[in-house]
């Protein structure tokens, strides 16, 4: 099978706001089903890879195979059609499917190197490995076995936010609002806590009011993109509300 990576790489292919990946995955239209898989894949491949690497202590190459194998199985065995939104969140279902898939692979030791006719997904695993190295440079940051569920959730949020930030970057470029994105980047993404609006205003020759307004606009758009992506991978409005609360409800 072939995955369309334009979405993964933020090619401006935003998910339909009200279209659920679950509904699309159950569609009779194969193109729609494939698109649903793309959406799901873009949201989950990073957390799944990191989860497999750490929870099952798999070396990078094996974790890459398992990650790709998992998504192929998800598609080929039509696992999404078995998901029941009444019983769990999609995120939990995906994680349990990963557990089941990896354990099954280990148990039967029948996993074959996927090659030949199998499709290798052109994913940037080395970059992801670099992320993982940066995250686990401190041994204490490696999650304990009982915290892998939290770890998966955290990585899922990180992946979703990273995609939404990329959406925002492209949106800003398209509208000539690079200055707003640059402010957002400087203050919300990479600043240390001592940076103030006044300092940003001074270094960029803006008024504090301009900084406030541009940041507020960028955050609003960021939230919109994050919500769009979230809505696309939630089965129901209720699940979307719960997940949105998880993303934005608990702070400050």
């Amino acid at each position, binding site marked *: 099978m072939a995955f369309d990576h334009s979405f993964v*790489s933020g090619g401006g292919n935003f998910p339909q706001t009200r279209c659920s990946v679950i509904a699309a995955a159950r569609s009779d239209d194969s193109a729609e089903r494939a698109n649903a898989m793309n959406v799901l894949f873009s949201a989950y491949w990073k957390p799944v890879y990191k989860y497999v690497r750490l929870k099952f202590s798999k070396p990078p190459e094996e974790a890459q195979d398992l990650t790709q194998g998992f998504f192929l199985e998800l598609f080929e065995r039509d696992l999404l059609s078995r998901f029941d939104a009444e019983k769990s969140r999609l995120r939990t279902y995906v994680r349990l499917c990963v557990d089941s898939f990896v354990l099954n692979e280990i148990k039967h030791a029948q996993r074959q190197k996927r090659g030949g006719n199998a499709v290798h997904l052109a994913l940037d695993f080395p970059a992801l490995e*670099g992320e993982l190295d940066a995250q686990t440079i401190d041994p204490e940051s490696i999650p304990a076995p009982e915290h892998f569920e939290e770890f998966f959730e955290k990585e899922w949020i990180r992946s979703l936010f*990273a995609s939404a930030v990329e959406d925002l970057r492209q949106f800003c470029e398209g509208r000539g609002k690079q200055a707003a994105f640059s402010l957002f980047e400087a203050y919300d*993404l990479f600043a240390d806590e001592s940076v103030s609006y006044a300092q940003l205003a001074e270094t960029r020759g803006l008024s504090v009011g301009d900084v406030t307004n541009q940041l507020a606009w960028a*955050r609003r758009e960021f*939230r919109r993109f994050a919500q769009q992506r979230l809505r696309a991978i939630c089965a129901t409005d209720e699940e979307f*509300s719960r997940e949105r*609360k998880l993303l934005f409800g608990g702070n*400050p």
Partner: protein
Amino acid sequence: MSRFLNDKAVERLRSAGALPEILGSRYVLQEFLARGGMGVVYAAQDNTLNRRVAIKVLDWSDSRSMLEERLMREARVLAQLEHPGIVPVHDAGTLADGRVFYVMKFVEGSRIDDFLNSASALPERLRIFLRICETVSFAHSRGILHRDLKPSNVMVGAFGEVLVIDWGLAKILRSDSDGRSDETVRSPEPLSGAVAGDSETETTSATHDGIVLGTPGFMSPEQAQGRTASLDVRTDIFSLGKLLETIMKPTKNATALRVPRAFRAIFEKAAAESPSDRYASVAALAEDISRFLDGMPVSAYSENLWERTQRLYTRYQAAILLITAYLLMRAIFVLFGRH
């Protein structure tokens, strides 16, 4: 390829995403003030009236309609309760991001327990408590129970004003009597709109029987058991008793206050396990506190002869000393006069 976001960036994005969307409105967000059960309170600048206000914004919630209704209900309850001890509401509505909010007066002050660190004298504490009683009694007279009275929900403002805040769990009582104390069920003025509306439906839909809402340590036993439908003013009286007990606890910088038996009896009666053993109204509780302050007997305690003598001595100490001194002088004068 999307970039890697470290943990700090993710947290900042979560916080940024949670900020209320008030761009383009008359308000400019200033700072985070506090988090409550339903949402967050921010300080903001009202550009139209050029004043500082506080905005309470609902969290993104997973059961929006119920919490939305509760927040709006709180705003409407506050709007009905025009009283110096209750923070006035200026505005309410829905933000551009879909969350419900209301705007209220910005109050500078401190929680009552923090404030009491600098007000350790018993009479001063009791006078503050009487102000709380006045506010709660006023709400009861409008048919509204607070149901979450505790130190963090009482503020003392910069000019000494005592404010009862956070009416998010307020219950609107029915306006027809069904045997509970008259103060509990009668609403002197019919409440309008959704606040009162169909009062019984409103109340039961907002707080179903069996659902426990309140703060452990301050909520009455009947409230803790989720007997929402049977709550009356005595549930607030229980909380006031607990609050009174807290107020009397020694503060960080003070030695323990000596608590007279008659006074202990007051808060024990207020916080009695059984509602029937409590004061029937906040006014009755306040009356006992006032009597205690004035050195008069209180309804909650039967004093013996010695205690009565002590109380009378304390109350009339100055007069007794003056008369005694006068009599002593007179006696000396008479004695020496004869010689």
